[in-house]
């Protein structure tokens, strides 16, 4: 990078003065939090370009912000750079395919495997199927294709998990191709972009955190048709809620459907997906691109939703929290109360490790913990 500018430009920059009044703290804070209208944003930027004091203020305020603000920093969209990985990935896949087919007779040794895509599409096992292989939704597009061997470079990124079939008490990875949980953005981009254009925008690992747990995978596979659902957790209160959630869950949905569509297995159950719109509405989808508002009668602006097994938790403004034990068919309000002081902060994060144990965070810094499926909460 060229680190220098002409001295004349430096002098000219230093001599810039804004003729206008300083923006108020409300405007400057809106600038820091990126919550201004386009017009206001433009005006404040114009002022900041010529006002050293206000620049100092916004940088101080930004620096003093809690970590969530830093966490909300948007990483650049991989865009075409993500596609750079698609070419070697395709080549790698093709090479692995030819090696496996021509030399090892990989397919011949293996009966038709049944793949269960985590998250939303649950593919029922075909009669007589041998192993059941669970695939993380990020790599679900691989369901009908062999995966590449894990090279040393990628070995730490690729995790193989074989779920024991009905006839096996335990299992180990007979091939890295059994299951691949891609954990890097580039891996996921390459795989998703290569297999399904609709899945180019990949969900964050946080968004599918629940689906990445091996134990959950094992139990789900053992039960064969137990519901596998995606836990959704809005991580940042200061981030526009709809932007990430909408695209992520759309792509997840499409990826899952694409997987189901590409599978030769006939029985596909589409589980509910949940999202929060930019307006703070809680929405549910049971089929692709068909979203219906849930809890529409509530004035709450929702900020977080989490699914664990059949339980759905949704929270929003003013400590509002709702719980459904039947996948969102029926809801009951939950009051977070400690010593007669109800929670008044906005619920910004809901996290459940199991059906019973979970925690809720608010934008006031409060954390509520339950270990009995929400019957009681401790602050």
């Amino acid at each position, binding site marked *: *990078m*060229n*680190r*220098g*500018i*002409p*001295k*004349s*430009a*430096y*002098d*000219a*920059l*230093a001599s*810039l003065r804004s003729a206008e*009044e*300083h923006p*108020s*703290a*409300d*405007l*400057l*804070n*809106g600038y*820091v*939090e990126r919550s201004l*209208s386009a017009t206001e944003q433009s005006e404040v*930027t*114009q002022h*900041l*370009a*010529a006002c*050293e*004091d206000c*620049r*100092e*203020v*916004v*940088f*101080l*305020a*930004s*620096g*003093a*912000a*809690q970590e969530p603000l830093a966490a909300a*920093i*948007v990483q*650049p969209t991989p865009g075409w750079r993500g596609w750079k990985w698609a070419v070697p990935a395709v080549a790698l896949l093709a090479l692995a395919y030819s090696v496996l087919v021509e030399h090892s007779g990989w397919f011949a040794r293996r009966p038709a495997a049944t793949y269960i895509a985590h998250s939303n599409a649950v593919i029922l096992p075909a009669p007589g199927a041998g192993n059941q292989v669970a695939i993380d939704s990020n790599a679900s597009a691989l369901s009908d294709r062999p995966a590449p061997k894990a090279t040393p470079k990628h070995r730490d990124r690729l995790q193989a998990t074989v779920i024991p079939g009905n006839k096996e008490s335990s299992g180990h990875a007979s091939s890295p191709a059994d299951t691949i949980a891609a954990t890097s953005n580039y891996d996921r981009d390459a795989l998703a972009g290569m297999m399904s254009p609709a899945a180019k925008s990949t969900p964050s690992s946080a968004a599918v955190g629940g689906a990445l747990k091996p134990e959950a995978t094992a139990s789900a596979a053992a039960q064969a048709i137990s519901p596998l659902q995606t836990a959704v957790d809005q991580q940042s209160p*200061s981030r526009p809620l709809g932007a990430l959630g909408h695209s992520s869950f759309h792509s997840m949905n499409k990826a899952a459907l694409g997987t189901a569509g590409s599978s030769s297995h006939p029985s596909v159950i589409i589980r509910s997906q949940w999202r929060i719109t930019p307006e703070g509405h809680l929405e549910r989808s049971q089929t692709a691109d068909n979203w219906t508002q849930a809890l529409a009668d509530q*004035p*709450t602006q929702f900020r977080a939703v989490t699914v664990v097994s059949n339980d759905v938790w949704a929270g929003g*403004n*003013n400590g*509002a929290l709702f719980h459904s034990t039947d996948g969102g068919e029926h809801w009951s309000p939950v009051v977070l109360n400690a010593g007669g002081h109800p929670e*008044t*902060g906005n619920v910004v994060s809901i996290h459940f490790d199991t059906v019973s144990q979970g925690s809720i965070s608010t*934008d*006031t*810094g409060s954390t509520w913990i339950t270990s009995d499926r929400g019957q009681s909460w401790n602050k």
Partner: protein
Amino acid sequence: MASAPISRPVCPQPSAAVEAFASFHYQESGASRFGIDVVGLAALLTEVISQRNPAPPADVQNVLTSLRLEELVLARACIAGNDTAWEIFLTRYRGSMFEAAYKIAHDEATARVLADSLYAELYGVNQRGEPRTSKLHYYLGRGSLAGWLRTVVAQEYVNQYRRGKRETSLETAIEDGRQFAAVEPEQTAADPRIAATTASELAALNAQERFLLAAYYLDRRTLAEIAKLLRVHESTISRKLDRAATGLRKRIRKRLILAGMTSQQADEAMQDVDVRDLPIKVTETLKQGTQETAFYKEKAGEQG
């Protein structure tokens, strides 16, 4: 905390849109906790919208939906002297205010002074029997209340620094061993074409580019700091800075040649200055202008 009379600016009547919004979002706003009814909420919103002028009537709905309603109601209830509101406010923000002050001042004592002085202003100063005016009046719900408090702390810190610099006497400065530079002899007058061309090309940049250049080259902010503020990756900032600086150089040089300079003269005029080598710390040299503390001049200020 005892209540004191507060100033109540005259507000226009709530519009139908505001009344509908207030009615629909009343429960969510938490206004009932502070004894504010739907009509009161509508009046409150109307007052805020009038403070946020100029907002075209067509934008009222956008303004309303973008408000931090619950925090705005809390702030207004505090202004009104509601004890419950103050209790909630202090519970929520006392710790974070001091933490923000500490992060800004990097010194516990200064942070304590900053936070304490802000408490007084938030409650509202009462000047000789006049109704008190709380600084919370200037919170208009564009961003979070916690973020607004951080910004106010930062403004107060900058103001205090500027006041402190201005009030330092000559004797104190001499006692501190400060050296005063001799008046430099006038340097060879620079070609006026350079300054004119540079100013013109700088003005042709968009505000975002000027902001980036000023933050990086004048204020000596790091790429990480700028990236955090603008919520983009450092590499994006680096790329934009590079593009802006390189483009600026090229355009200035081209115009200087068009203005009659030879290539060699233009290149000499384009001598770099790398501010990282300059013996000054711009961020510590806040302007000693004659302007008084100028923050908090939202329209509400005149009303309060």
